[in-house]
């Protein structure tokens, strides 16, 4: 049992939650939580990332459990105004009905899990995932019908009420893409809370045969916030996932991205950028499970770290015995722009079969002095040259994002962050 979170208090909090429809899920989650261990730095997968700050926040939550909040939909959030998408805004368990109707017309069904006929399929595996299922207000379920080609991305934004003193949020997206469909999804964590806050997020994706999903996670939390997110994608035959993460903010960020190749000929590109400054910790753990052959995974992460920021990259591909003709690679490139910046990087391959094509590599370095002098010799200020070179390094990721309407927003996020970091 997880020693750091009081199980009796957790059970009490879970029982007080309003959506009785999900009670079976909560009971399962509580039971699973009871039998599992919370991560600690003694665990190899968590050795660089200490999440003990979340225990105090959970304690506070248990003593002041979340209240029921009336629907307060607003679209003042910058991202919903700047990126053209079908924005689905979930605010304390209420969903924006207008956009769900528009989506219905193009063959995308969006609902709260509690309103869905099928309430099964909630992933409950490790302790954090169980904690999420026990405490979530609700989950959002997106079903993309067969053959649908969405004309615009679907944006998902969970909002907290800024007056709500709830310390912890639990978000869950369940995305089901049927066969032969093409869809883009933007998962935004852009709502800044200027107080210690823990967001525990889970994203589940099932991608059907011949389907293509473009998934973009944008995270620009305040430096008081902690985000732990687990994303699990199950890929069908010939399915294609293009995943990009952009991590700009948060005091503590941990992402676990798991891609399961369950059928042949599936392909996953898992890309990301992270920019960390003073007192920030960003950890990306990626696991590509090649259970079956003729599948391809490619991981490309770029990081810029300044101040006393600390980042972790662990990109792993597991090639099982049956997975012949698999293709897997992991690359991680880092620019350290201060003396105290730190990166712990580990591309990793675990191979149990022959006849595979795998490669991995990592780089850690500073800005190229020759390039800096070259730019200065053309009249460009040293600081501006540093900013341009850093931006050039990190914005390479934009080439991997196939959501044109989001590129400008990402570029602005990066530019603003680099300006702060290189001042």
């Amino acid at each position, binding site marked *: 049992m997880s020693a750091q979170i009081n199980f009796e208090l957790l059970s009490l909090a879970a029982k007080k939650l309003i959506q009785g429809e999900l009670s079976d899920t909560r009971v399962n989650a509580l039971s699973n939580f009871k039998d599992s261990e919370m991560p600690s730095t003694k665990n190899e997968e968590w050795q660089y990332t200490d999440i003990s700050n979340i225990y105090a926040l959970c304690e506070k939550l248990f003593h002041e459990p979340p209240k029921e909040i009336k629907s307060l939909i607003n679209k003042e959030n910058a991202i919903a105004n700047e990126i053209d998408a079908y924005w689905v805004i979930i605010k304390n368990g209420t969903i924006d009905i207008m956009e769900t109707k528009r989506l219905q017309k193009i063959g995308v069904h969006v609902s709260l899990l509690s309103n869905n006929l099928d309430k099964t399929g909630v992933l409950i595996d490790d302790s954090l995932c169980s904690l999420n299922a026990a405490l979530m207000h609700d989950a959002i379920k997106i079903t993309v019908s067969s053959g649908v080609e969405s004309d615009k991305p679907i944006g998902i934004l969970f909002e907290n009420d800024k007056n709500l003193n709830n310390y912890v949020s639990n978000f869950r997206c369940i995305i089901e893409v049927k066969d032969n469909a093409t869809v883009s999804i933007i998962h935004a964590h852009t709502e800044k809370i200027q107080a210690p806050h823990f967001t525990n997020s889970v994203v589940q994706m099932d991608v059907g045969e011949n389907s293509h999903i473009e998934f973009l996670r944008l995270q620009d939390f305040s430096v008081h916030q902690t985000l732990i997110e687990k994303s699990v994608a199950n890929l069908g035959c010939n399915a294609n996932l293009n995943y990009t993460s952009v991590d700009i903010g948060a005091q503590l960020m941990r992402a676990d991205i798991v891609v399961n190749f369950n059928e042949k000929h599936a392909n996953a590109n898992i890309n990301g950028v992270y920019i960390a400054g003073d007192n920030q910790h960003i950890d990306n753990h990626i696991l590509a499970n090649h259970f079956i052959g003729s599948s391809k995974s490619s991981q490309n992460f770029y990081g810029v770290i300044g101040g006393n920021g600390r980042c972790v990259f662990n990109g792993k591909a597991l090639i099982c015995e049956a997975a012949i003709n698999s293709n897997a690679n992991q690359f991680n490139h880092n620019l350290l722009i201060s003396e105290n910046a730190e990166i712990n990087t580990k591309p990793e391959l675990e191979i149990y079969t022959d006849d595979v094509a795998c490669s991995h590599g990592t780089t850690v370095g500073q800005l*190229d002095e*020759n*390039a800096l*002098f*070259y730019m200065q*010799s*053309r*009249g460009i200020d*040293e600081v*501006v040259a540093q900013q341009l070179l850093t931006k050039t390094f990190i914005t390479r990721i934009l080439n991997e994002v196939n959501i044109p309407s989001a590129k400008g927003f990402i570029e602005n996020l990066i530019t603003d962050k680099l300006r702060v970091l290189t001042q």
Partner: protein
Amino acid sequence: MLEIKNLHAKVAQTTILNGLSLAVKKGEVHAIMGPNGSGKSTLARIIAGHDGYEVTDGEITYNNKNLMDLSPEERSREGIFLGFQYPVEIPGLNNTQFLKAALNAKRKHLGMEEMDAFEFLKIARDAIKKLEIDPSFLNRGVNEGFSGGEKKRNEILQMTILEPSIAILDETDSGLDIDALKVVAKGVNEFRNPNNAVILVTHYQRLLEYIEPDKVHVLSEGKIVRSGDKSLAIELEKTGYAQEKDSEK
């Protein structure tokens, strides 16, 4: 315009320049020749402000200002241009963005209004046409994947757009085929006028067949051992540099 007096410089403990003096006036083209390791590129980089060298003695004045007081970017904005022997590749940084930032830095310094993208593209397109450069140059990353010849042409393109007062071209002719050499020479000849100056750093007389220098200097062991007119270059081509070293001793 540019006056170098008794310049001494070293890298770590190795002395490279050893009492070099040179005066370049407006309207002049100087060629600096010399064997490998004689200090030609060091001289070019010190003038541009590279901080990898320690100047231990001597002075450089440019338009009556002490050059050593200026940062590399200030020197550039004041009109000094270094054409690199090995132009640096900056993958992902668009050539147009780079050139526009450079030109606007200079314009701002001179109290002129910064140029917008439209005005800038017009100037850039005129320049590439004149230099017979492929227009795709402008959309590529700075020197990214450029051949040796393309990189050198890009240096001349930058010089043409930035319109410096003095251009120091460090072995701009090396690695060029005859067609590229002619394009580079054409660029330099069109650039030169009574108000600016050029210093050509080169190993070979070949470039000087296309760009006629007013003065030719031979650099050996960190100082100028001989100066003359263009006939000196022709003579060197026949006799080599060994003789210059011997005569010095």
